[in-house]
């Protein structure tokens, strides 16, 4: 594409050309002689010099205001509004805020300023939930492991053909280690007798959020790939089953799926076998996000050139061979940004599980504050603290996704 000669650029000062009176008024054709008369050579303009001083800025600003008054006015209004909000936030959150863990000071500053002491007092409860106090280092270690792996996985190297298998196995091992760390059992066996075992219903806070979101995306991805393959396949029955599943799930809110997981799963399972609530909710989120993952994967499948499929067929590869060695590797490279976005969505969605009484970050905050009348009035500060945690993760991940997209586009 780039080798094509670029068209000659039009003269920049076309509008300032002196116009022949005959041309300005009417549309009569003029002959060559007249045209020659009209044409006057203009001296080349000097190279524009970049002024960075204040006068130049002011000139630009005044030109902006003169040429686009509506937009200038809107910008001004927006800036004033932002300033107002910022000053409100500064006043409440910094200037009048109490930073020490001091109930009395918080009480007297109530309504005027924030009480960040609450976060200092309760942050362990918010971060780790009801997990036994002495064992909370296990939560911290699990989170560190999971975050480290997440950081590696969204990096540039993790899903290249060289490292793909290693990354996958590392995730499997990380999952098992986290499970062992958090519960104190390894796949149900007491192999770590030094650490007391902790029931899943005591898990909470950040580890629960991470386990739910990472676990469900790990389970939803293979399911989503199968659903996407089914949806793009030529077999009408399989295609319609997949379409039906995807559209049905995408049509209902996550809350209804969570209700189903907590109220209906026990009814659907064989008599007297009720799986743990964590497993049920994890399964519910997985079934939910698989439909969305399938749509992301389908986008990737459609991005693969049709010639690739034809080439694979002409090499006499079977369906699964074609998908496994030709189509999917290319499609998956395309969908990594989409998958990161998908993960962000799931990560945010896990905040809903508090409705079915699992104490992830939001639930743990309620747990920390509702039982303590002294600190109960400072909910807003707590929500802001959690919002900051979510913002940190989601913002970082969305930046990563944008970078990946950029890199893909420039490849």
């Amino acid at each position, binding site marked *: 594409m780039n080798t094509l000669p670029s068209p000659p650029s039009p003269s920049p000062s076309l509008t300032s050309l002196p116009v022949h009176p005959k041309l300005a008024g009417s549309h009569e054709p003029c002959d060559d002689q007249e045209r020659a008369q009209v044409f006057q050579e203009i001296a080349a303009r000097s190279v524009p010099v970049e002024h960075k001083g204040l006068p130049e800025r002011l000139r630009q600003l005044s030109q902006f205001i003169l040429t686009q008054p509506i937009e200038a006015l809107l910008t001004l209004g927006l800036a004033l509004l932002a300033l107002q909000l910022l000053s409100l936030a500064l006043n409440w959150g910094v200037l009048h805020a109490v930073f020490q863990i001091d109930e009395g000071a918080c009480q007297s500053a109530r309504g005027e300023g924030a009480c960040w002491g609450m976060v200092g007092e309760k942050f362990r409860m918010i971060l780790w939930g009801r997990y036994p106090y002495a064992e909370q280092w296990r939560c911290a270690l699990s989170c560190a492991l999971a975050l480290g792996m997440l950081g590696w996985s969204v990096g540039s190297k993790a899903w290249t053909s060289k490292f793909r298998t290693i990354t996958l196995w590392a995730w499997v091992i990380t999952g098992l280690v986290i499970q062992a760390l958090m519960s104190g059992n390894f796949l149900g066996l007491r192999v770590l007798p030094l650490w007391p075992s902790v029931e899943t219903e005591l898990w909470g806070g950040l580890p629960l959020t991470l386990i739910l979101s990472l676990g469900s995306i790990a389970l939803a991805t293979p399911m989503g790939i199968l659903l996407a393959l089914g949806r793009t396949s030529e077999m009408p029955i399989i295609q319609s089953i997949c379409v039906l599943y995807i559209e049905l799930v995408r049509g209902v809110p*996550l809350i209804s799926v969570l209700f*189903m997981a907590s109220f209906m799963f026990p009814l659907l399972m064989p008599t007297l076998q009720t799986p743990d609530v964590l497993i049920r909710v994890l399964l519910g989120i997985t079934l939910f996000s698989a439909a969305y993952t399938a749509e992301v994967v389908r986008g990737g499948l459609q991005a693969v050139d049709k010639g690739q499929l034809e080439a694979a067929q002409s090499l006499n590869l079977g369906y699964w061979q074609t998908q496994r060695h030709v189509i999917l590797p290319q499609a998956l490279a395309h969908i990594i940004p989409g998958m990161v976005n998908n993960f962000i969505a799931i990560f945010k969605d896990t905040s809903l599980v508090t409705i079915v009484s699992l104490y992830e970050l939001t639930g743990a905050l309620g747990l920390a504050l509702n039982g303590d009348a002294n600190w109960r009035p400072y909910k807003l500060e707590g929500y802001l603290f959690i919002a900051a945690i979510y913002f940190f993760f989601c913002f970082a991940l*969305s930046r990563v996704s944008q970078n990946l997209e950029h890199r893909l586009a420039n490849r």
Partner: protein
Amino acid sequence: MNALTQLWNHQRYRQVIYQVTALLLLLACIFWLGHNTWANLKQRGIQSGFDFLSDTAGFDIGETFLISFDGSQTYWSAFGVGVLNTLKVSSCGLLVASLLGLMIGLGRTSAHTLSRFICSAYVELIRNVPLMIQLLMWYVMLVEYLPHSSEPYSWFHHIYLSQEGLAYPGLLWLQSTDAHGVVNSQWVWSWPVFDADGVHSEFNFSPEFLSLALALSLYTSAFIAEIVRAGIQSVPKGQIEAAQSLALTPWQIKRWVVLPQAARMVAPPLTNQYLNLVKNSSLAVVVGYPDMVNIANTALNQTGRALECISILMSVYLLFSFAIAWVMHKTNNKARRYLQRQANADRPGGART
């Protein structure tokens, strides 16, 4: 090589075998789940069926829209109230989110760095925090940080904002009988009254409704803004340069050149956001706004009929989703045909064809 292998090696037959197997597996799965459910229900002595819908609900709903409700009415009406409340909050959210999203999206493509920066900060802040937490924050702010209803904020002495919600004037259909026994009915303005007892009004947005509507519209507006920005930036630069060379003003360029072309790009993802908004309105259960989910949850806890309540809930949302998808599809088609006609008419000699 026997006949079966031959059959297997024929692609057409293999596809049939695959599909029949998949169908059988699915049916077996459904049968297994159904059987389990039946056995469980029988074992626990839980009654099933939708007959409970005509029973008396026995609970009150704090906030109703269009129809009134009290505890002596049936579950049917309770679900109806829930559906209407969901529609109310979703339609408010849709309207505000669309307008706000359009403005923020335009701001993100503005010529001025400052408005671009402010708008991107807004989008990033809103998009990266879960809706649930935003909703809870708005609710706490409205319920705890606003003044008590004995000293509300007021605008023009007709709109009052306090912990009790937002009281606003509205039109009321009044029927009165005069001295001669003639029934008069007319529209009457009803104004909020503020006295020593607080604010009294016929029309009031509760803090639950306000927080939900605010959170939904702000959250969705950030996503709509991104869609609008992407749509605007997808318009080829040559189009804008052509418009500039025709000496159109910046506003005219936006109105007549950029937005019509961006609109075509925007429609499909916008539909998705609208659907998300309606589905997200189910978070009402967190702040206690009596929407569809909240009512279904109450009914479920009272009657124990999880299966029925959840299936009603899901079918209503599916209905909403399909309705919105259908309406957006129709609108999109109509707009496309309209634009096509315009383009044909504008083309030289287009009138003849």
